[in-house]
């Protein structure tokens, strides 16, 4: 079993043009009396595509929300490009977030904006350039996800798969160094799942960002992940390459990836 181990020295890496590493140390969170994260340790290398898998309600999305700074942990650290996100507030946190691209589970597209306006939105709001100069960039991002001719439609007028693609285009239009994807293929048919996965891998290679993706798509994610982390009962149970996870001897990991129904006490 390969346990999550922090790599010495990388914590001090300063913000640079390259994709930064992500270091999570002893992250703990409790909602009321319910512990959700019981000490998560995880290291994601620069430019790595890490897929976090685990049972529903196991804390995967909560972990992601901590990394995004949407939830404050009870204990632990999240270090990205040498900065501990759990200690940052206000403008300092925003400066780190400006390097993020996020694909939410439901897409989180703005209902009142067209598809093109959704993709244009993050660059328009951050740039002093006129919209006319930014428009080609948004159109190119849409073209990259195969939706060049859908810009005029509203999110409610396109399919679930298209919405996910638009969300990916919106996340990548700012050329982020770190990308988070929260179950980007949930609710899609197998063909669309493969198509979205292919798109993610292509864009990951093209833009070279560090990525954490939360997913349930087993075994499909083994074909796209650089490494896979198994989150179980609020802790990282195992981290390894897809081959290591697929060949794991750990009973819980095997049970999860083979989809076995739990019949015996652990």
């Amino acid at each position, binding site marked *: 079993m390969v346990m999550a181990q922090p790599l010495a020295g990388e914590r001090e890496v300063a913000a640079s043009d390259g994709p930064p590493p992500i270091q999570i140390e002893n992250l703990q969170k409790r909602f009321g009396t319910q512990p959700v994260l019981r000490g998560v340790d995880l290291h994601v290398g620069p430019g790595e595509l890490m897929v976090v898998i685990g049972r529903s309600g196991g804390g995967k999305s909560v972990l992601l929300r901590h990394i*995004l700074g949407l939830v404050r942990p009870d204990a632990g650290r999240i270090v990205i490009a040498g900065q501990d996100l759990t200690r940052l507030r206000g403008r300092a946190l925003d400066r780190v977030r400006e390097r993020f691209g*996020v694909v939410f589970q439901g897409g989180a597209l703005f209902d009142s904006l067209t598809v093109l306006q959704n993709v244009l939105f*993050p660059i328009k709001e*951050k740039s002093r350039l006129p919209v006319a100069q930014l428009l080609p960039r948004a159109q190119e991002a849409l073209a990259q996800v195969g939706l060049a001719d859908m810009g005029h439609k509203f999110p409610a007028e396109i399919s679930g798969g298209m919405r996910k693609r638009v969300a990916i285009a919106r996340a990548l239009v700012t050329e982020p160094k770190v990308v988070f994807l929260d179950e980007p293929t949930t609710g899609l048919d197998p063909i669309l799942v493969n198509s979205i996965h292919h798109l993610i891998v292509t864009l990951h290679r093209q833009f070279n960002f560090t990525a954490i993706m939360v997913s349930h798509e087993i075994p499909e994610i083994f074909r796209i992940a650089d490494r896979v982390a198994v989150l179980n009962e609020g802790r990282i149970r195992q981290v390894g390459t897809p081959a290591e996870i697929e060949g794991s001897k750990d009973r819980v990991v095997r049970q999860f990836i083979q989809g076995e129904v739990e019949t015996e006490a652990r």
Partner: protein
Amino acid sequence: MTIRHATDAALASIVDPAQQLGRATVDTLSAMGRFGLFLAQALFWLLVPPFKVGQTLQRISFIGARSMSIILLTGGFTGMVLGLQGMLLLRRVGSEAFVGPAVAVSLIRELGPVLAALMVTGRAGSAIAAEIGVMRITEQIDALTVMALHPMRYLVVPTIVAGLIAFPILNWVFDVVGIFGGYLIAVKLFGLSSGTYFGQIQAFLSTTDIWVGFWKSLAFGVVVTWVACYKGFYVGHGAEGVGRATTESVVLASVMIFVLDYLMGSILP
């Protein structure tokens, strides 16, 4: 063992309600603190450029222009009711000449700001709470946050500013239409002379009355939009949560309008 259990049960019956009361008090106080802090944050972001002019104009259109028909209708009928009751009552004492000031002062000082605010609460306040609530549960507010674009600036500040601009205008429209509603009844139905109706209004109505109505409408504009944004922002889960937030925003804003109306009525000249 049995005695100890009985003692524990007796103790629990005293401590549990006390704990529940304590918890409820802490929850209520913390919700009130969060509610106040929400407005303080909005006022802070109100002063921080860049200002979202486009969103503010959209909100003014949504709160103001789209509420106009209901304001015209309710304002007109309110004035007609005041005119009718005023005429019936004042005729008994031979003072029907004062129906104009009765209608105008009641509308401008009290009924105009309060009823216009209640109408807008039902039409626009509920819709704003639902819209922001849906944005919350579909992670659109989180998306704004992780884009390093503060939701307060994009959603809350334009709504409150729109309330500050739209409410006084709607209030004036309500007052003017209401006064003409009263005119229809007093002059056209009861045969009071037009000069008496408007002349007495001119004689009795002071600028203080107009200022009182203005300050009230400003305050109600803040209250309605603040409550709607807050309830949407801290919505519960799913469609049920959005439904509850919408209802709570209408109820809370309506109650606050009446409380504030009384407080301002007793403080203002």
